[in-house]
């Protein structure tokens, strides 16, 4: 089973087409393993990307360097998955 301990989902807002293009380039860098949950499309629309824990610092630095505005939507993906699994287990027991 693949675990996602420490992975975060960032909600990024691109201000213009240039930032949209930068986010697309970010997604193409295979070594960063960024997983877009909501793809970059129109400036002003939220873009959600899951970033594996080992690449978190690098991606955040890049976003800061390029003046992106972003927030952390999910602090730790695995924590949510554990809660989800527990909730399914409880429901099955009932």
């Amino acid at each position, binding site marked *: 089973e*693949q675990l996602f301990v420490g992975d975060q989902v960032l909600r990024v807002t691109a201000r213009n087409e240039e930032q949209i293009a930068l986010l697309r380039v970010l997604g193409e860098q295979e070594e960063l393993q960024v997983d877009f949950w*909501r793809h970059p499309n129109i400036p002003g629309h939220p873009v959600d990307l899951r970033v594996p824990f080992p690449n978190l610092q690098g991606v955040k630095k890049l976003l800061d360097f390029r003046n992106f505005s972003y927030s952390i939507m999910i602090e730790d993906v695995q924590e949510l*998955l554990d809660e989800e699994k527990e909730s*399914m287990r409880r429901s099955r027991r009932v």
Partner: protein
Amino acid sequence: KRSSRTFDFASYHTIDEIYDWMDVLVEDHPKLVSKIQIGQSYENRPLYVLKFSTGGSNRPAVWLDTGIHSREWITQATGVWTANKIAQEYGQDPSVTAILDSMDIFLEIVTNPDGFAFTHSSNRLWRKTRSINAGSRCIGVDPNRNWDAGFGGAGSSSNPCSETYHGPHAHSEKEVRAIMDFIRAHGKVKSVISIHSYSQMLLFPYGYRRAPAPDHQEMNELAKKAVSDLAAVFGTKYTYGSIANTIYMAGGTTIDWAYDNGVKYSFTLELRDSGRYGFLLPSSQIVPTATETWPALLDIMVHVLEHPY
């Protein structure tokens, strides 16, 4: 005797639990609901469709599918709730009764069963099918980029490692081909509604080009009414419009194929986004999500009934 009434709609379920429940629904409504198999997945799982029909032959039909992207669990859960709602409301709700007295409804709840099973066993965040890509270490094709409508165009990727990989050729995925074959063979499908999550949108063709579809105005008006009725339930605000102009250019999508193949009322829904959980929407939100989606679905189906073509 098992009963569909004891099923917990406010919980997420595995594919086995959903498939078992489908049998129970059929047992509880034998004159209305039947289960048909339209094919097998890449890993040989059955592709089941619930058929809601009050009889007649060669009736016009509405096609609904949920969960072609396996990690969007709220979508399959909404499919289960919706199936139950259709069965319960026939003979009670005048709109549902009128629809089913003239048309059939087909609902494929687990549209990507291999991917869905994989999300339960190995990788909760799996989106694609599970087919092997020759010459690549990466698995799977995005089944919503695999249709023969602008196949391989903008918004899809030729890289098998990408989440939007379009596949080696159009309809390469058995899960996609089965739906295509079914809709073509049926011949009287008048509406295709393909349900996804999450960005709170009601979209219609085109995705593969920016030019408006010939029926743009009618679909826009219908979408406006549907999202308004959806918002009236809990205040959830949806945007609407063509895929290309509302979200992004995307080649090879389900509803573009349907529209280009004569299914005029082709829509795709992106269910609610809480802004906090993404694909990991807690199960407590299943019933509210499905409940608010219902009037939008009903609006589209009633419109199809009232505007035969």
